[in-house]
């Protein structure tokens, strides 16, 4: 870690390392990421991003929970998921540059590390520890997301909710990435979350349970 790093940043970096959000990312790498972004404390109800906005940043949720919502066909705000720290929020928009598919609000008091678009672009293409750390965090998050989506799809194929549909074999869409890691797929909101979000072929927010 750098000598000038504040004790708060050091503590956050060590916490993120212990929580194994990404196994190969060391405390030094986390500290570099924290220093490249800005640590922000937000109070309950603060909006990180709004549905339809262009992506301008991603956030590492360090402490607390955020609520993911989007409008349904009737214009009513529907809760899709609650995400708990530590996790990455808002990264899909930066991966493929699509507009925000959901609104994210602080559920209570939260602490995030905000990395703006320019910083993310710079770090993702950069050699060295910090760039490697960011890429690894994104890759680990995406791998878990894909595993959850694959499992949900397999489940839907095996047990369609309609009455007359014939169940396709669950194995058909399983892939080598099809692993679960700390996801609660029995949560009813995950179903809603995926269905609503994918209606516009957009992002698939996560539903990670502590």
């Amino acid at each position: 870690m750098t000598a000038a790093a504040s004790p708060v940043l050091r503590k956050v970096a060590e916490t993120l390392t212990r929580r194994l959000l990404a196994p190969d990312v060391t405390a030094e790498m986390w500290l570099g990421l924290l220093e490249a972004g800005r640590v922000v404390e937000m109070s309950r109800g603060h909006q990180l991003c709004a549905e339809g906005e262009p992506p301008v940043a991603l956030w590492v949720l360090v402490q607390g929970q955020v609520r993911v919502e989007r409008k349904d066909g009737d214009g009513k705000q529907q809760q899709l998921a609650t995400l708990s720290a530590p996790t990455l929020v808002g990264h899909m928009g930066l991966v493929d540059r699509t507009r925000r598919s959901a609104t994210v609000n602080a559920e209570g008091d939260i602490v995030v590390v905000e990395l703006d678009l320019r910083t993310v672009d710079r770090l993702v293409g950069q050699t060295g520890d910090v760039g490697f750390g960011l890429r690894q965090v994104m890759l680990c998050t995406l791998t878990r997301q894909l595993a959850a989506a694959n499992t949900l799809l397999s489940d839907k194929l095996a047990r369609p909710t309609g009455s007359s549909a014939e169940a396709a074999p669950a194995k058909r869409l399983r892939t080598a990435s099809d692993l679960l890691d700390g996801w609660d797929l029995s949560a009813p909101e995950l179903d809603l979350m995926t269905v609503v979000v994918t209606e516009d072929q957009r992002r698939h927010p996560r539903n990670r349970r502590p």
Partner: protein
Amino acid sequence: VSDLDILVAMPLFDRVPRAALERFCQAAPRLVLSAREVAFRQGDLADRALLVVTGRLDAVLGSETLGDVRPGEIVGETALFVPDGLRQATVRAAVASTCLCLTAASLRDHRDNPAVVALQQHLIGTLGRRIRSTNLLIQKQWNLHRTPEAPPPPPTLVDRLRLMFGGGR
């Protein structure tokens, strides 16, 4: 034609200097597979990913082929990001093939190599696209099987009176 010459021509590495790719080739063990030879089996410990250099691999589950993996593509990448996972499918060579073996440790140890940066960036894009397409399939399934919403119940006498006189609930 050497592996290095093939890698240099891959779009994935188009911004990577040849010298960096050469170092990358030296760090990644080469795996040569004959036709139908198994690279890894379902249920095996997932400890490496394969970058296909020549040939073609098939991912299979039982008797069913899930898809193929061609030069420039990576298979088994979960092993790089999820420790101690198990293979969810068997991967075998459809034809004689050459691959480079990638491990989490090799990526970490060579993180300053631009070839590793390019590889990770490529994987971020690939995973993002797979998530989108999987979500699309889920959407199709949902649309196929969803039941129409029940119409709202007709207003009761109390509801109508509230409407007339503006009473709240």
